[in-house]
């Protein structure tokens, strides 16, 4: 990853964030999306085996994602909505990981992951143009569409095998980190799509090939920036997947969260809908070319 001089002053760091937030808001305003807020303190977070929503004794859990609550709003007729909020992930800290980070999440009723991919690319370009200065141009080739690769084809080329319906979770994650991600271009946005069905617990399966889910990820500057999919709206299927995740969590020795029955009850009313979550701090990191996420937050986690 490129190393650049830190932003220098607190003021410069805050201005970068403020301009980035304003750019995100103007993007969604221009598309008629409604900004919403959902609770940070949850009773029943989505069970995902590799994500820990930190427990708050006596109160519940800090949200690892606003996903379930936003889908309930869409199911209740909210229309296209977006949110800029905080999410929490227990045990994650590294050069590009924070235990508390800013997430931009939005939903497009009536759309599939195809339109969501287009809009994610458009959002990143929009923010990049607004953050660009003569001394800091956009960090990808402007004017060129982001590369798009189907996961099984990309794995075949870079890792020598095609992950499918019966993919080994561990092997998939290892080769993604060890072989695929390091080979992605650094100077261009890349959209990866059609993940093995097991790698997407809240996404709809591809109607033409149920071995894969209609899920995508955006990489920029080698960083995983966004995750989106066509939402699963089949409540029975969603319940079965949640139970599988809960079993996997229990097998790790953790106690599974309660099931969010209100979410499952609302799900059939969601209909066709696509949603995307984008890490705002990572977007700033990728657009500035800095190499530590602590360079773009108001405080470094260690200094909180």
């Amino acid at each position, binding site marked *: 990853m490129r190393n650049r001089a830190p932003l220098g002053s607190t003021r410069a760091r805050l201005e970068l964030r403020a301009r980035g937030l304003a750019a995100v808001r103007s993007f969604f305003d221009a598309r008629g999306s409604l900004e919403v807020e959902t609770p940070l303190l949850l009773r029943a977070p989505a069970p*995902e085996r*590799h*994500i820990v929503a930190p427990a708050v004794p006596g109160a519940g859990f800090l949200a690892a994602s606003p996903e379930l609550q936003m889908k309930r709003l869409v199911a209740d007729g909210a229309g296209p909505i977006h949110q800029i909020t905080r999410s929490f992930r227990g*045990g*994650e*800290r*590294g*050069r*590009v*990981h924070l235990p508390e980070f800013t997430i931009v999440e939005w939903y497009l009723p009536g759309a599939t992951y195809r339109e969501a991919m287009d809009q994610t690319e458009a959002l990143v370009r929009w923010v990049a143009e607004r953050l660009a200065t003569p001394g800091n141009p956009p960090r990808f080739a402007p004017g060129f569409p982001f590369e798009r690769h189907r996961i099984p084809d990309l794995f075949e080329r870079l890792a020598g095998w095609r992950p499918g319906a019966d993919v080994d*979770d*561990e092997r*998939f*994650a*290892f080769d*993604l*980190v*060890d072989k695929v*991600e*390091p080979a992605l271009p650094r100077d261009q946005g890349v959209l990866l799509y059609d993940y093995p069905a097991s*790698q*997407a*617990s809240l996404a709809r399966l591809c109607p033409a090939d149920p071995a894969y889910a209609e899920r995508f*990820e955006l990489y920029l500057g080698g960083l*995983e920036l966004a*995750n989106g999919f066509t939402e699963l709206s089949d409540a029975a299927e969603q319940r079965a997947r949640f139970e599988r995740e809960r079993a996997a969590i229990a097998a790790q020795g953790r106690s599974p969260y309660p099931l969010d029955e209100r979410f499952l009850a609302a799900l059939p009313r969601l209909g066709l809908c696509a949603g995307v979550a984008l890490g705002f701090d990572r977007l700033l990191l990728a657009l500035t070319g800095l190499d530590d996420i602590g360079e773009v937050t108001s405080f470094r986690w260690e200094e909180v």
Partner: protein
Amino acid sequence: MYDSSDIRKNLKILIDGQPWVVVDFQFVKPGKGTAFTRTRIKNMITGAVLDKTFRSGEKLEPAEVEQVSAQYMYHEGEQYWFMDNSSYEQFAVSAAQLGDQAQFLTENLVVNITMFQGQPVGIELPTFIEVQITKCEPGVRGDTASGGTKPATISSGALIQVPFHINEGDWVKVDTRDGRYVERINKR
């Protein structure tokens, strides 16, 4: 035993019987996947550099590697003899282990010896050494500004390129990483 969460720069680990040192590392975790630590490691014997990814919780064997400061004494055939500066113990490093480094060794030069499982496996030279020119063609008058070079043998044995104005008996500073002439020095 180390755990993947112990990975830090300069951590020395044993892989397939070889000592490696971590030169860079990064915590990586796909949004929907398990956590890994991606590292760049360097073989402490061969100097080979490798990118390696460790699974979360993976065990790593520590490499018993230490650096001792030692003075070069002399060589006898294929054996280069050094003396530990604190224990005065003497030990030999083979020509094969030294490779090109042997030609920068001069008597009393202080180097760091890498000891692996109690045995010397290699040395780390100072970046710059001061050596005397033992053999070169005489300087050519008028050529000092042309920027050209000529071959010269230095007291440690290496053949290097020096500017035309350097003569036999001159003392020069040499970069041991690439054998590059740095400057002429006034000495004794």
